[in-house]
């Protein structure tokens, strides 16, 4: 007790926008919380909802999918695909007891390192308040 809860947050960042923004943040020596672990993907539309569930199952306290802004997708409309899936997935996660704040879809342009940092800080703050992911109620063990 007494130690501050440090959430683990996984971010799927699109190669063309959000990941470039993270790169820019790095080269500009801007700081963002180390709680965010970034996985680079070619497109936000490539992130299968199974991967989000897998991330939560493996101990992530929050997941962010970050893609290009509407209209800017390198593959024309991959980010719209991500949008459709995210809306349905969030509904499913809520039914399963995962608070909606734990899963986010953000549009971050390649030049917008500031937004990436704001999203990261905001997410860490919100998840810290929520505490670790508790999907399943205490169920005990079968003897």
């Amino acid at each position, binding site marked *: 007790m007494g130690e501050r809860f440090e959430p683990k947050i996984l971010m799927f960042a699109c190669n063309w926008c959000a990941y470039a923004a993270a790169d820019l943040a790095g080269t500009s020596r801007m700081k963002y919380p180390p709680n965010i672990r970034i996985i680079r993907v070619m497109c936000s539309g490539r992130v*299968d*909802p*199974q*991967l*989000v*569930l*897998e991330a*939560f*199952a*493996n101990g992530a306290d929050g997941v962010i999918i970050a893609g290009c802004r*509407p209209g800017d997708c390198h593959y024309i*409309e991959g980010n*719209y*695909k991500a*949008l*459709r*899936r995210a*809306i*349905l*997935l969030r*509904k*499913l996660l809520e*039914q*399963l007891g*995962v608070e909606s704040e734990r899963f986010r879809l953000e549009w971050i342009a390649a030049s917008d390192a500031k937004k990436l940092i704001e999203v990261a800080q905001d997410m860490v703050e919100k998840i810290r308040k929520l505490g670790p992911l508790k*999907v*399943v*109620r205490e*169920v*005990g063990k*079968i003897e």
Partner: protein
Amino acid sequence: MSEGKIRIAFYWMASCGGCEEAQVDAVSDEPSLINILDIVFWPVAVDFKKEDVEKLPDKSVDVALINGGVRLSEHVEMARLLRRKAKIVIAYGACASWGGVPGLANLYSREEILSRVYSEVPTVYERDRKPMVKYVAEEGVELELPEFLPILLPLNAVIEVDYYIPGCPPTPETTLNALKMLLSGKIPPKGSVIGASQRALCDECPLNATKPEKILVKKISRIYNTRIDPGKCLLAQGIPCLGPSTRGGCTALCPKAAMPCIGCYGPLETHIDYGGKVISFLASIIDSKDEREIARIIEEGLPDPAGLVYKFTLPASRLRLNLMKWGGRSV
């Protein structure tokens, strides 16, 4: 297998009896099976008791087919007993494989379920009556009844399972395929799904020919208020048909009858999480780029995603099984 006969045991846990029906149907389709099956335990039809099974030597039963989900302490006890007695244990049907429909109860706690069933439903009159594990009968005999477990588990969460026969229930054809595979001595790797196809349901669906290259719909329809065209791919009509992510092997019985696939043959080998996969393809067919419109289409057409995408697999889903660390295999 002694004298050309297969010593077989059947058991049911939290199930509806449909699996027994399917097993009887399978034998009616192939009556010659009766001559080679030596039934040693079958609670639904034959009067063997638990002590009869206990008396059998370990590993003396060739195959145990267990259906239903694990919901009572009795199920755990019987599953473990049959595991000791049988060489091969098969999870028969969707419930034993991944929890099935009764597994949706895991969206609620045990207390919520008991309170609902014993106190809140309008047809209950004796509201103070609650289930109890210890009970003294009128004759003064003290009975110990099975405990209602905190959640429903798939069979592999409590014992090691050798093979899975999917379906709700498995069709007679699937059942016979699986039995024939075992009889032929061609033993597949442990943990395999047997009797069914290795490909998605769409592959064997006659409506597949009418499936457009790209499906985009403005509305996801509910079957109760939609006139379905029986000759056209159901997904293309905006009906949430789970064929694309569901294992085939049932010969597309539901789509052939103009009913959408509800996913009872479960996931394919390549899936990480069945529900996640369904979310993936189902959301992709929505023809809109506007956040509010998408939300409205989903709200109207898919009001209960968990009930749809995890109708048969909730207890074995990644989020539910992995975090519980029951030691079972997730789908």
